[in-house]
C-alpha cells in the first residue's frame, strides 16, 4: 500500500468531492492543491476562481499567495476585488468553496476572528476575509482541516462564517443563497451534515481509523451515520499526481 502524509490524505479526499465543469473558489495551500488535483484527474473543465479576481488561472509555479502574479499571467480573465465578490460570488456563479478556521462547531459554523471575547481577545485571528461571503453564497462548502480537539468545538467563540447556525431552521430563516456546509474533510474521516437538523455527521472513515478515534478528537457526542463508509485509500495515481503539482514541496508535507 502507498505511503502518504495526513495532509496528502486530506487533499486527495477533498479533491474527490469536485465534479467536472464546477466553478471553485480556491484559496492557497490545501484548497489550491485539491482543486488542481481534481482538474488533473476527474474534472479537467474545473473552473478555478481566486478571491483576488483571477479567473481560470494557468499558474507557471505554486502561488505564494492568493494574489500571486502567476495566477494572472495566462489567466482567462481578471476583475477587481468588488467585482469578484459581486459578479461571481453574490452573482451565484460559484459552485464550491473551501474554508478552514481556528474553530469549527457541530453545525459547521467557522471562527476565524477571535479566541475569547471579541473586545479583549486571547488570540486575535486574521478575520473573515472572504470566508463569510463564501459561506453565504456558494452551493457547497467543503471544510478541510486537521482533526484536532482544539479546532472542533461544540459552539464557536465567534461565528465568522455561518454554517447551519444552531440548526437548519435558523439557517433557513436567513434565506442565504448558498447551500451551506457540505463536507468536512479531516485526516481521520469525512463528515457531512444531517438533512433535517444540519448537525455534523460522520459518514466515512479514512483507512485504519475507527469511530472511537474520531470521537476522541471531537469534544461533543458526534453523530454517526447509520451506515459509515470506508474512504478508499489514496491511489498511487492520486499520490503521484498530487506530488507532481507541488514538486518543490512548498505546501505539501
Amino acid at each position, binding site marked *: 500500500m502507498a505511503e502518504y502524509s495526513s495532509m496528502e490524505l486530506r487533499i486527495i479526499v477533498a479533491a474527490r468531492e469536485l465534479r467536472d465543469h464546477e466553478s471553485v473558489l480556491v484559496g*492557497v495551500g490545501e484548497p489550491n492543491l485539491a482543486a488542481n488535483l481534481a482538474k488533473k484527474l476527474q474534472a479537467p473543465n474545473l473552473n478555478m476562481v481566486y*478571491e*483576488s*479576481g*483571477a479567473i481560470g488561472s494557468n499558474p507557471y509555479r505554486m502561488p*505564494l*499567495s*492568493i*494574489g*500571486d*502574479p502567476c*495566477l*494572472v*499571467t*495566462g489567466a482567462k480573465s*481578471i*476583475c*477587481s*476585488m*468588488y467585482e469578484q*465578490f*459581486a459578479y461571481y*460570488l*453574490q452573482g451565484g456563479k460559484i459552485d464550491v468553496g473551501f474554508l478552514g478556521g481556528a474553530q469549527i462547531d457541530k453545525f459547521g459554523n467557522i471562527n476565524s*476572528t477571535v479566541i*475569547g471575547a*471579541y*473586545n*479583549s*481577545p*486571547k*488570540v*486575535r*485571528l*486574521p*478575520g*473573515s*476575509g*472572504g*470566508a*463569510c*461571503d463564501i*459561506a*453565504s*453564497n456558494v452551493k457547497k462548502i467543503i471544510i478541510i482541516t486537521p482533526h484536532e480537539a482544539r479546532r472542533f468545538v461544540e459552539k464557536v467563540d*465567534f*461565528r*465568522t*462564517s*455561518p454554517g447551519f*447556525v444552531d440548526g437548519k431552521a435558523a*439557517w433557513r430563516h*436567513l*434565506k*442565504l*443563497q448558498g447551500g451551506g456546509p457540505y463536507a468536512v474533510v479531516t485526516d481521520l474521516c469525512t463528515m457531512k451534515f444531517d438533512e433535517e437538523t444540519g448537525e455534523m455527521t460522520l459518514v466515512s472513515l479514512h483507512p485504519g481509523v475507527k469511530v472511537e478515534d474520531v470521537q476522541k478528537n471531537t469534544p461533543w457526542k458526534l453523530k454517526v451515520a447509520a451506515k459509515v463508509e470506508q474512504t478508499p485509500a489514496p491511489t498511487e495515481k492520486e499520490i503521484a499526481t498530487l506530488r507532481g503539482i507541488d514538486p518543490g514541496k512548498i505546501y505539501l508535507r
Partner: protein
Amino acid sequence: MDSVKTMSMKEAVSKYVKDGDLAYLAGFTHMIPFAAGHEIIRQKKRNLVLARATPDIIYDQMIAAGCAKKLIFSYAGNPGVGSLRCFRRATERPKPKEGQPAPTDWKPLEIEEYTHFGLSGRLFAGATNMPFLPMRSNIGSDLPANNPAIKTVKDPFTGDDVSVVPPLRPDVAVVHVQRADRNGNAHIWGITGEQKDAAFAAKKVILSAEEIVDESVIRSDPNRTLIPDFVVHAVVHEPWCAHPSYVQGYYDRDNEFYMQWDEVTKEHETTMKYMDEWVFGVEDRAEYMKKIPREKLDRLKFKPAVCTPVDFGTM
C-alpha cells in the same frame, strides 16, 4: 507641458496626509505602496484611521510605529505566511507577567471589521457615492452584532431583511500603478484589487507609478486607464515603490522578506530596530533600494510575457 501635480513622495505625503486622516493605502497583495507607508512613518503622522481590506506588512509597520489610532479591515494577515504580530500585540488582551496582576491600563487599537465583500463594497459605494450598499452576506455572522455600521433594511420587493453597509470616503488614498502620465491618467493591469475604487472614493489621491510615460501611451489604450487624471492630486514617480510586494510585469514579490517579517516582529523591540534601519535610517525609497543587493533585485525581475495588442482604428 509639465504638470503641477508631479512631486516627490516626501512632498506628496507632507501635503496630502494629515494627522487624524482616514487613509487608504490600496492593493490586494499587488502593488502595495510600501514607499508611501514608510514616508508616513518617517514624517511621524499620528492618529490615522487606517483602512484596507487586507492590511498587511506595511500596516503592521505603521501600527508598530504608532501612526494608527484605528484600523478598518477585513483580513489582517501576512499573506501566505501567517499573522501580523504588531497588529496582534495592539489588539490582544495582554497576558499577565508571571506572578504579577493583569495590566489595567490596556488600550487596544480600535478596530472596525467587515468581510472582504463588505469592505470592498463600502469602498465601491464610496467611489460611486451610493447612499448605502445592500449585500448578500453578514446576516449569518457575529460581525454585525459587533459593528454598528452594518445595518439591515427591508427589501421593498421581497420584504426580506437585507444587510447594508455605508459608503467609505477616505480623506486620502494612496495608489501605486504600473504606468501613468504626468497628469495622473493611469494604466493598471494584473490584479486590479481596489485601486480604482480607492481613487474615486477618496477626497485626495496620491498616485505613484513605476514609470511616467507620455500621454500618447495612455491614450493609445483608453480601456486600460482605470484612473483618470482629474481625480488625482499628486503624481509621484517611484520605481520599486511596492517592494517587498510585487508589480505585475515589473518585479516579483520578495517572499523572503515576507517570511522574515514573522521573525522580525516577534518583539516590539526587534520591530523597531528594523524600522530604525530601513525606514528612519534612509531618506527615501531610492536610498532604501540601494541597501538591497543587486543580485536579489535581479532575481525578482520577470521574463517578458507581452500581450497581443488591439486595434482601436482611426480614419
